[in-house]
């Protein structure tokens, strides 16, 4: 017998566990990668959107005559021109493609225009006359349930009143607090853009940057009054997503204009329009009361959560489910009463953003844990360790954790990691940098810790699947999946998985399109490595089995004696050694639909086995604060995360660093300022995102590897946790530095200089 099974690899292309480089890295660094904004067609027209200047108004009339008369204009379309269903929506079809007789948020699309030049589009949009009867907007999420419904579906989008355990429990020690999270923008760098190309048979091709091709396709088809197969949606290059591309934006508009003019139509949002054109992270107002025994054992958590969903539902139902289910954090809590509501207002619509729902409550429950530690006179790390969830524990939903939950390991490794943060000597390193006024003696330092968790994949009984196909021909594997690569690196991991299973070197990723393969589901909820990675793995395994069976039959060999190693098929008994390219001159193909373990809906008390799996993370933040000007410098950020198994170390670390940056942003600078329903800072001049100077290096204390049952190779999704506990840790560190309560993020300079009651 030969030692083929353990023969050294001859191939060089990286497999599972190695830091493979991105296959799109060369085109993305050389400028040849085509983003959705780069699409071009010689016959194309440009599209544009007229948006409501009012957060709430009745439309009395719309005059388009002057717009149609603008030279170069080919179409001006309104609500009545929507050929099929007039509304779209991710979970509820409640959002008009174009406003009918009412507008419910500032920026709601009212009319669309196609013309042969962007200037003509602009002139036509200005020439449209809309007569609005302006109404008083309902903008306060705390009272909106009591006012006249602003939508036929009512002002309550979803309420979950979760009750768990004995409701009469009272702790020896109680701490209470109210907390607020402002509206955050995903701020992807590539604004919405795309192109629709009509076909002669009435079908249409849509090229667009998105997170979920088939959901888009289905909604677009319904709105166009077409069969889903008549809309072919192909992923165009995506300039970041982070949740903001899970809903439709310009999709139906492009298709309507293309159908109407019988010309390809391209549309690109400006940054300002982008702020109005996609959903944001839900602002949250939260009240909490924690109960513990005097030795620090949590016995009960009560909370009231109100999330502002804005004018339309988007993914609000899933967001409030996460906020409610994970409201108490990754701790053992035997008794809970969590009332979570997401309401409809005339504010900008809110929906998915990295860590949806869990980000908001993590900031609050971690502030509560620090408050509790103080009340108990206990070390905050010890308090967290004492209550940390373990496998076999029950969540607030009554669900038992059957998978991995290395919460204590995450806490310890992060808390014990040595800090390298030195006292700033270079004035440029002080808060404010070149613009500072404080000397080193006026700067205070704070250090704090936060822990967070969230579900992976979709929950509550959603029929979640991903399809993938593998074709092995001439020794080259081609993978077809509609998984949206948005930057996260699925294309890298899919190649690694394919090489691992099939022993091939060359793996081609076919374009992601609805035309060739079924749904891969959404690139959200940290689900694609698991779901589409799982589909790719199973498709490849199927190909391997089919190939070995075919070769066994051809060679009269025993299939159990054959193995596929490094581009060769060899028999363990010796005597057979066939080049894979030769063996696959005739292709071998397989197609699979991958599903995760079933979940169930929550019952009336918010109880049920609603989730598949969970991931945990911790951050420790060190900040310097200039209390005179209220400026904060995040000096160091250290993290540990529960990752299942690492498929690509470089990409895992990249996600942890990038996700933490978005968390830092929410902690100290990022806020969509909405006043009376109007966005006041729809630009990168006024909406601040962290620069290279704002972000400290992220120190990885530990990546805790415990293979997760049911996950391909045991790998958990890792994209969201970095954005969950980072905000809470930074805010807590500012609290420690200043001694202030800081019940709101982002922490603004005025919150530090003029804390409530002292302004």
């Amino acid at each position, binding site marked *: 017998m030969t030692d083929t099974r353990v023969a050294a690899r001859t191939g060089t292309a990286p497999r599972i566990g190695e830091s493979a480089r991105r296959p799109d890295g060369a085109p993305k*660094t050389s400028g*040849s990668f085509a983003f959705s904004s780069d699409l071009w067609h010689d016959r194309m027209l440009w599209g544009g959107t007229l948006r409501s200047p009012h957060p709430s108004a009745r439309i009395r009339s719309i005059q388009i005559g002057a717009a149609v008369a603008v030279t170069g204009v080919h179409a001006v379309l309104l609500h009545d021109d929507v050929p099929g269903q007039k509304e779209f929506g991710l979970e509820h079809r409640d959002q008009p493609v174009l406003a009918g007789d009412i507008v419910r948020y500032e920026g709601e699309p009212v009319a669309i225009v196609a013309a042969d030049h962007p200037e003509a589009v602009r002139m036509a949009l200005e020439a449209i006359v809309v007569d609005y009867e302006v109404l008083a907007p309902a903008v306060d999420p705390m009272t909106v349930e009591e006012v006249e419904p602003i939508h036929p579906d009512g002002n309550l989008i979803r309420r979950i009143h979760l009750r768990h355990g004995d409701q009469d429990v009272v702790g020896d020690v109680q701490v209470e607090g109210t907390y607020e999270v402002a509206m955050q923008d*995903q701020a992807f760098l590539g604004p919405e853009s795309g192109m629709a190309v009509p076909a002669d048979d009435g079908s249409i091709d849509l090229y667009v940057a998105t997170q979920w091709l088939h959901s888009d396709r289905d909604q677009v088809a319904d709105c166009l009054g077409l069969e889903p197969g008549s809309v072919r949606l192909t992923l165009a290059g995506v300039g970041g997503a982070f949740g903001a591309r899970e809903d439709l934006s310009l999709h139906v508009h492009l298709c309507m204009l293309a159908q109407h003019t019988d010309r390809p139509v391209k549309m690109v949002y400006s940054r300002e329009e982008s702020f109005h054109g996609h959903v944001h992270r839900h602002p949250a107002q939260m009240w909490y009361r924690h109960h513990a025994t005097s030795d620090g054992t949590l016995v009960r958590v009560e909370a009231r959560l109100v999330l502002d969903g804005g004018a339309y539902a988007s993914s609000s139902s899933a967001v409030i489910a996460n906020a409610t289910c994970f409201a108490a954090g990754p701790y053992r809590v035997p008794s809970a009463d969590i009332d979570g509501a997401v309401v409809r207002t005339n504010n900008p619509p809110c929906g998915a953003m990295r860590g949806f729902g869990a980000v908001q409550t993590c900031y609050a429950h971690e502030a509560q844990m620090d408050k509790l530690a103080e009340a108990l006179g206990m070390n905050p790390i010890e308090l967290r360790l004492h209550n940390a969830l373990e496998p076999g524990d029950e969540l607030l939903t009554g669900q038992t954790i059957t998978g991995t939950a290395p919460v204590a390991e995450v806490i310890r490794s992060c808390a014990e990691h040595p800090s390298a943060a030195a006292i700033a000597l270079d004035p440029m390193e002080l808060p404010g940098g070149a613009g500072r006024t404080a000397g080193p003696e006026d700067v205070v330092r704070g250090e704090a810790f936060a822990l967070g968790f969230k579900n992976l994949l979709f929950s509550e009984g959603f029929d979640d699947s991903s399809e993938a196909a593998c074709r092995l021909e001439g020794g080259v594997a081609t993978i077809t999946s509609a998984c949206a690569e948005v930057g996260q690196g699925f294309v890298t991991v899919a190649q690694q998985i394919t090489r691992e299973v099939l022993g091939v070197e060359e793996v081609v990723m076919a374009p992601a399109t609805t035309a060739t393969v079924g749904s891969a589901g959404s690139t959200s909820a940290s689900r694609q490595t698991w779901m589409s990675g799982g589909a790719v793995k199973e498709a490849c395994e199927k190909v391997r089995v089919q190939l070995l069976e075919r070769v066994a039959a051809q060679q009269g060999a025993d299939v159990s004696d054959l193995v596929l190693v490094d581009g060769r098929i060899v028999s363990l008994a010796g005597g057979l050694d066939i080049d894979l390219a030769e063996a696959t001159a005739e292709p071998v193909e397989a197609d699979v639909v991958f599903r995760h373990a079933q979940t169930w809906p929550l019952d009336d008390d918010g109880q049920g086995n609603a989730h598949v799996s969970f991931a945990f993370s911790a951050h420790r933040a060190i900040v310097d604060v200039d209390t005179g000007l209220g400026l904060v410098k995040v000096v160091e950020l250290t993290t540990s995360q529960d990752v299942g198994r690492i498929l690509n170390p470089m990409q895992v670390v990249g996600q942890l*660093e990038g*996700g933490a940056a978005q968390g830092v942003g929410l902690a100290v600078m990022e806020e969509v300022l909405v006043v009376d329903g109007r966005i006041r800072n729809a630009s990168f001049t006024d909406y601040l995102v962290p620069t*290279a100077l704002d*972000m400290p*290096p992220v120190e990885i204390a530990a990546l805790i590897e415990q293979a997760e049952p049911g996950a391909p190779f045991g790998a958990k999704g890792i994209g969201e946790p970095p954005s969950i506990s980072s905000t809470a840790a930074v805010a807590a560190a500012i609290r420690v530095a200043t001694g202030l309560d800081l019940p709101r993020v982002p922490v603004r300079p005025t919150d530090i200089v003029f804390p409530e009651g002292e302004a």
Partner: protein
Amino acid sequence: MEVSVTVNGEVRTADVEPRTLLVHFLRDDLGLTGTNIGCDTSSCGACTVLVDGRSAKSCTMLAVQADGADVTTIEGLAGEDGLHPMQEAFHECHALQCGYCTPGMVMAAVSLVDEYSDMDADGVREGLEGNLCRCTGYQNIVKAVLAASE
């Protein structure tokens, strides 16, 4: 107005509206779409190119201001032998995810390294402050620039 700009070593002449921004001239008139537009307010740096060897946000300049200048875009950075060391370093260090900021970031980094030798991580961060990246948290970008400057 007629402008004549040397772009990636080639003289390009076009009749443009006086208000045409350099970035639109590059993208729409010359088809060089590697230079991206991210913000319209000169905040993000996705449109950074080299003008006479120094980095400039091409949305802050009119095409006519570049008349007679030597402009290098991301497409003109690679040489006969393949990617520029800065492009190679970005790829190698995983200094990009979605890649939208990458062309501008690479151009800004090339200019920075050209101007200041012997930079440390703090210097790179200061030098790239005008270029936003939403995916990476900047750490690998700093690594890549330091690697390429060696």
